[in-house]
């Protein structure tokens, strides 16, 4: 088993058009490093030079926003589901 990661349309140029990819790692940061090794350039789109999540990128582990669970230090494990989405205006 691995960690399932859902990729938004705008980042699929890095994943050969795949909507879902798999990776591994003990933290979100390690998972992103692993994904970047397989899909070159992905990390640059998600993480800033200062090593923080990009302002307009939201990442959810099992539907919970990682900014409230330790951001890139959030722990992940096999079987988790990770969703990456751009920040957009909600319906109101």
């Amino acid at each position: 088993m691995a960690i399932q990661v859902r990729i938004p349309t705008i980042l699929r140029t890095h994943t050969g058009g795949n909507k879902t990819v798999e990776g591994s790692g003990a933290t979100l940061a390690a998972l992103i490093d692993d994904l970047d090794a397989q899909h070159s350039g992905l990390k640059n789109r998600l993480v800033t030079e200062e090593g923080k999540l990009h302002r307009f990128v939201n990442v959810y582990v099992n539907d919970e926003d990682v900014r409230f669970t330790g951001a890139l230090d959030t722990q992940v494990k096999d079987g988790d589901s990770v969703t990456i989405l751009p920040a957009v205006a909600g319906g109101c």
Partner: protein
Amino acid sequence: MARFASLVDSLGGTPLVGLPSLSPTADVRLWAKLEDHNPTGSIKDRAAITMIEAAEKEGRLQPGSTILEPTSGNTGISLAMVARQRGYRLICVMPENTSIERRQLLEMYGAQIISSPAAGGSNQAVAMAKELAAEHDDWVMLYQYGNPANAQAHYEGTAPEILADLPSITHFVAGLGTTGTLMGCSRYFREHKPGIQVIAAEPRYGELVYGLRNIDEGFIPELYDASLLDSRFSVGPDDAIHRTRQLVEREGIFAGISTGAILHAALGIADKEVAAGRKADIVFIVCDGGWKYLSTGAYAGTLEEASAALEGQLWA
């Protein structure tokens, strides 16, 4: 008091009702704040009326003024009702992938609709409204995503009502759109009962809505302050529809689909509290009734059919 000088004056004072069937135990209880009991049937009446009255006080609005607003429906419907009562013209910039009922209600109240493309969702509507506002100096954009009066409506209304009705509240769960409800309520709770956990439920739409050309076109409402939230959950259409149906079947509450998303997050919190052996009183917001969403197909057929029908729609 149940007598008011006019419909607008009847704003707020909505009921808080228990959920005896969906609450997991006698110690972990769920409570629904029925915001569909507002003048036009949604929580947005609070923001709309408060924003208009603030603009009137500042002298930005006079009879005959034109109001411009990006909205996917409920805020527009509330603004349209008040605008007609007070002699303002209203133009709503609305994504074309919103339900037909919302359009019909806006037209009935006399609002003019400018459609923004479905691709890009509310992001596009906001961008388009900002362009129009720049071109028309005399139009007044109330701008719910950045207008402090939006959050203030909940600081002065929603939150104090809840705390007065249920002093033992431990958790507050609401939808995240403009962020006005969560920001205003959280500020009040942190001042008056700091231990209350404030949780956001954010609707996760189909891919079309996230179709930005680049990440830097992303959008975070100006009102948003992450330090006022304790956690934030993304809820997809399957879970939202499932919970919307559960709410009507088990508790008799016929709510819109965004309420299903909020209930899903509230039930997740409830499970954690039961597992931890704690007592909890969890309040969540019922944003509106289900009437405006019947045509989406969310209430008929199997969950799979309903979920497929929502693909590409702005269902919250």
